[in-house]
């Protein structure tokens, strides 16, 4: 009984709230201090300002040039554009391929099933850096120039697995009787797939696609190895900024990115909780 008391005790709740404070405080700090006008020491509050936001959107601001990374916002915009192009293309390819493998493994009988399961499992257990260097060696030795294209390929190689896992989980929850009924009623394989199977697995497919999109937008390690000089993505760009020293406009970029990813993740998680 003592354990039950402990579990309901206020001590555990207090700990719990501290735990969440630890998880969220750093994120909130970035947002709060992105409005701090102090250009030298970003963690000492001076006064409220929108200067850093103005700067990254290309408006003139009172910010002195010594406080900024960017001569112009061109580099930043190019990185955002690359990231979006890569994430959208990757999402489409990885979602189609991942769903195809998930359907094949769940709904068909064939001998290589174990092989495909292992293949989908492999990127999950491999440290990112291994895939990064393997792809770098591959592209260079085959003679493919590093570009946005190579990043898309690189992202697809591991995001297919993520889509596979999300879609497989969805298929596992389904009951096969509807598909059987459709076949019994004379619908051919394609019609059954389009009218019955696809609508049922759709929440899983969308969930997998959103996950692939977010991870692609965020990937740093693999991209870092296979990004060419002109194909920086947003995370690689920020990583480069951090290595050159920290200046306040990065806070504003960070706050906007936070907002963006939290919105997408919330939509995805909400949809998943509602459909299941």
């Amino acid at each position, binding site marked *: 009984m*003592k*354990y*039950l008391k*402990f*579990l*309901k005790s206020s001590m*555990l709740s207090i*700990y*719990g709230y501290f*735990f*969440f404070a*630890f*998880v969220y405080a*750093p*994120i909130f*700090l*970035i947002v709060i201090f992105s409005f701090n006008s102090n250009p030298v020491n*970003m*963690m000492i509050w001076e006064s409220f300002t929108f200067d850093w936001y103005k700067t990254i959107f290309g408006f003139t601001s009172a910010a002195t040039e010594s406080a900024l990374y960017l001569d112009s916002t061109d580099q930043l915009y190019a990185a955002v554009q690359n990231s979006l192009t890569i994430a959208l293309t990757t999402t489409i390819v990885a979602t189609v*391929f991942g769903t*195809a*493998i998930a359907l*094949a493994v769940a709904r*068909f009988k064939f001998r290589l099933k174990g092989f*495909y399961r292992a*293949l989908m499992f492999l990127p999950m*257990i*491999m*440290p*990112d*850096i*291994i*895939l990064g*260097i393997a*792809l*770098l*060696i*591959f592209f260079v*030795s085959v003679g493919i120039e590093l570009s946005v294209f190579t990043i898309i*390929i690189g992202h*697809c*190689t591991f995001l297919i697995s993520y889509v596979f896992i999300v879609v497989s989980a969805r298929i596992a929850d389904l009951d096969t009787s509807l598909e059987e009924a459709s076949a019994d009623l004379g619908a*051919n*394989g394609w019609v059954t797939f389009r009218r019955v199977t696809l609508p049922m697995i759709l929440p899983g497919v969308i969930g997998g696609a959103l996950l692939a999109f977010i991870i692609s937008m*965020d990937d740093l*390690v693999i991209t870092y*190895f296979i990004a060419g000089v002109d194909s920086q993505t947003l*995370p690689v760009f*920020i*990583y480069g900024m*951090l290595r050159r020293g*920290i200046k306040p406009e990065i806070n504003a970029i*960070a706050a906007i990115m*936070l907002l963006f990813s*939290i919105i*997408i*993740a*919330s939509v995805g*998680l909400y949809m998943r*909780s509602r459909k299941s």
Partner: protein
Amino acid sequence: MASLETNERRRRVILLGLLTPPTIFLAIFFLAPLAIMVIYSWLEPGLYGGVIWNFYDLNYGRILGWADSKYEKFDLVYLIIFLKSVRLALTTVFISLIICYPAAFWISRMSEGKKNLFLFLITLPFFVSLILRLFAWVLILRPTGFLNQALLGLGIITEPLHIIFTDVAVIIGMTYIFIPFMFLPLYASIEKLDLSLMEASADLGATQFQTFRRVIFPLTLPGIIGGSIIVFIPALGNFIVPSVLGGAKVMMIGNLIEQQFLSARNWPFGSALGMIVMASVLLLLIYYVKIMAREDQMTSAPAVKEVS
């Protein structure tokens, strides 16, 4: 019967259609690169970043100790860096376990609606850009950062602490980014705990510590092991956290690999280092599968037996 046969043939065609494109893609862009990396690790490094197509085992020899000093020198430093990475990764695993375990307990005993909300909140940071979460810790840990400002302001310290660019900063950073990885497997096994087992244990006169050691701990062990492995693997090969929070002062095996590829341009040696990381991960997983197989046998016996 004929229609059954055509149906069967049709299913074959659909199966081929589903599998062929992704298989070709993954064979070329996933399996082939990994195979080439394995081959590279056994090739001779050429001048200025190239390779010479000779069988060459001294890439491994430099690390593991059989290099003659004529071509390559064995240097203990590589093994030391590897062991240091293992130590940092294990510390990260241990701390995130200690932090997450009580929190998982706390959430597992909430009402259904609250539970979902808190699980959502714990998953959310996983979707926030990793580099931004690390950047936040740079701001916090710097000598002029938030933590030092706060401690100085409160009069707890008189000199700013130098936490950034130390092992401690790297461990804090890794613990922070891997919390969701540790939390979810832990939570999955803690949520399944049957409270009546704890009551039974207490009724039979076990102390709280005994109940924990004999009942709760063994029953949540699968989650503990699962979470530990999921955290250990990305922590071991990490190079972003040490490079952002450890600066030039903390070198992990990931940083060494990155250097070999992007500045030293000795790709065969970098591949050999990568292979050593990969081999340790695989060994760990084989061990994990073995433990899990044994666990399955044990849990198939009535759980009450373990209370004795």
